[in-house]
């Protein structure tokens, strides 16, 4: 009986202490993350005058988003984000797999290469963007090197050219984050039992075949993590564009992304006069929220189904 009473009193203490212990974290997280996010979703169904919510407008903001003058910006930015995602999948997560595989086959020196490859990932995208902006500038060192090697003549304007600018930004982003796929793939490869590879070797499988036929199917969880992370990061892309090409995504919106467009709508840098359009910004935010949540869920399910267990 006394034992029973003691546990209930302990449980009562625990319930009270739990509330006290959780409250500070919940208050900060609720106030500065959950509340503004829910209000933003809610507000996208209203008309706005400056920063003041006016009246319920149904889906009016959303339909305005897709037509002139916003339509061209929206589709342009969306296309750039999609291209960015596939570019990163190929350049960063594809090359990263090759690097991780080479390191795995060698074993020796893996920690050194991993540390070097990962180093840019701890730098701010602002620093990385600013550094590459200096290196790629007309008169910069890349121009000098390409001229010296005879690969290019005259002034290098890859960042000012609307055909090449987006590709350069994607490459800089891949340079920034290359260490991430290398680390995640290597961790995945080390979890595969060495006997699997030895058996394949005895059967006469070459390195390329082992990567394709054995390692890749077993790396599905790693690939799933990377695809999801790259998707989220790509559709939040802002810093590199802002620092290298300005908030308009120069030249002539060729590097505009959904978040730079959102920023211009919300904080007044869109168009010649730079007036904010909060209704439009919130509608774009809600749309991006849906793209991100649905996309993430679909990807997690897709890779979950394809996970092979040995």
């Amino acid at each position, binding site marked *: 009986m006394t034992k029973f009473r003691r546990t209930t009193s302990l449980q009562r203490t625990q319930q009270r202490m739990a509330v006290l212990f959780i409250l500070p974290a919940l208050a900060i997280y609720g106030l500065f993350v959950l509340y503004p996010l829910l209000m933003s979703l809610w507000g996208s169904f209203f008309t706005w005058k400056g920063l003041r919510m006016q009246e319920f407008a149904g889906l009016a903001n959303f339909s305005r988003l897709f037509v002139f003058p916003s339509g061209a910006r929206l589709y342009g930015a969306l296309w750039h984000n999609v291209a960015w995602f596939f570019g990163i999948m190929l350049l960063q997560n594809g090359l990263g797999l090759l690097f991780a595989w080479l390191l795995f086959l060698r074993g020796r020196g893996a920690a050194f290469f991993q540390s070097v490859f990962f180093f840019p990932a*701890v730098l701010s995208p602002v620093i990385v963007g600013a550094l590459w902006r200096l290196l790629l500038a007309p008169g910069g060192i890349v121009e000098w090197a390409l001229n010296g090697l005879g690969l290019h003549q005259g002034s290098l304007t890859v960042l000012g050219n609307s055909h090449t600018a987006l590709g350069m930004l994607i490459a800089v982003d891949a340079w920034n984050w290359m260490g991430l796929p290398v680390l995640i793939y290597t961790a995945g490869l080390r979890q595969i039992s060495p006997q699997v590879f030895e058996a394949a070797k005895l059967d006469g499988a070459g390195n390329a075949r082992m990567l394709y036929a054995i390692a890749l199917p077993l790396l599905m969880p790693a690939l799933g993590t990377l695809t999801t992370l790259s998707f989220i990061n790509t559709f939040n892309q802002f810093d590199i564009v802002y*620092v290298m090409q300005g908030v308009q995504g120069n030249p002539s919106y060729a590097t505009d992304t959904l978040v730079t467009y959102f920023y211009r709508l919300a904080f007044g840098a869109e168009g010649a006069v730079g007036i904010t359009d909060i209704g439009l910004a919130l509608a774009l935010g809600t749309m991006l929220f849906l793209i991100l949540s649905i996309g993430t869920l679909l990807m997690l399910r897709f890779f979950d189904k394809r996970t092979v267990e040995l």
Partner: protein
Amino acid sequence: MSAVAIPHRLARLPGWTILLVWTAAVLLPLYILVVSCFKTTAEIYDNRLGLPQSWALDNFVRAWTRADLGHNFINSLIVTGGAVILTIVVSAMAAYPLSRYKLGWNGIMLGLFLSGIMLPIRLASVELFTLMRSLGLLDSLTGLILVYSAIRIPFAVFIFANFMRVLPAELEEAARMDGAGETRILFQIVLPMVKPAVSIVAIFTAIAVWNDFFFPLIFIFDDRYKTVPLAISVFVGQFRTDWGLVFASLAISMAPILIMYCLLARQIREGVGAGGGMK
């Protein structure tokens, strides 16, 4: 033996070449960054790859004082330090009952926190701006500390809860027998047992906060409160022709992270390899 070993080694050559090419692609830009810090703009044009004529600190001094990067640097230190401490304290407090008590609502509450790991908080920046303005937290380092902690709490709770869950139950029972209160059990017994979790949270919070640019861009207008990344984004345009100064400010702004990375490279690699989300 050598008849087999030599072709074997030759076969490995292309692989080594690929790895070394990427190593150069990472290290060369950083090398150029470092040597350019010590060169005048004219010297940067004349002597592209070589070492500087003299290791003059002129660019650093000008970046620190004339461009006032020193001020931004101190702001960034305050914001990063404040956010790391606040995040660790409140997240460890929340994770302790959620992972160690039988409350009946652990799962729901933990789920509420974890859902925040993936939330695209930038999209809430309009409402966040309105909120910060009404709380008087615009142009304030405290405001930044609160926002960054709020964003990092989900990841921190997740890490702390995972580490605390596997501790033996006898741990608190013995302490409770001795009459220790719950607060003391958390801070003097449980927290020292999960030191690896504390360092993971501290490292990744520090990197994310030190590097962030978006929230200062929205919330900070007064030069006195600007953080390093925000200042850098201005310098790149403002001192466009003064390359030595810009290179030096880039070097200064990455120095703390560089030092931390050299000291903690192994923990960082393991933390990321274990699937810890970075951004």
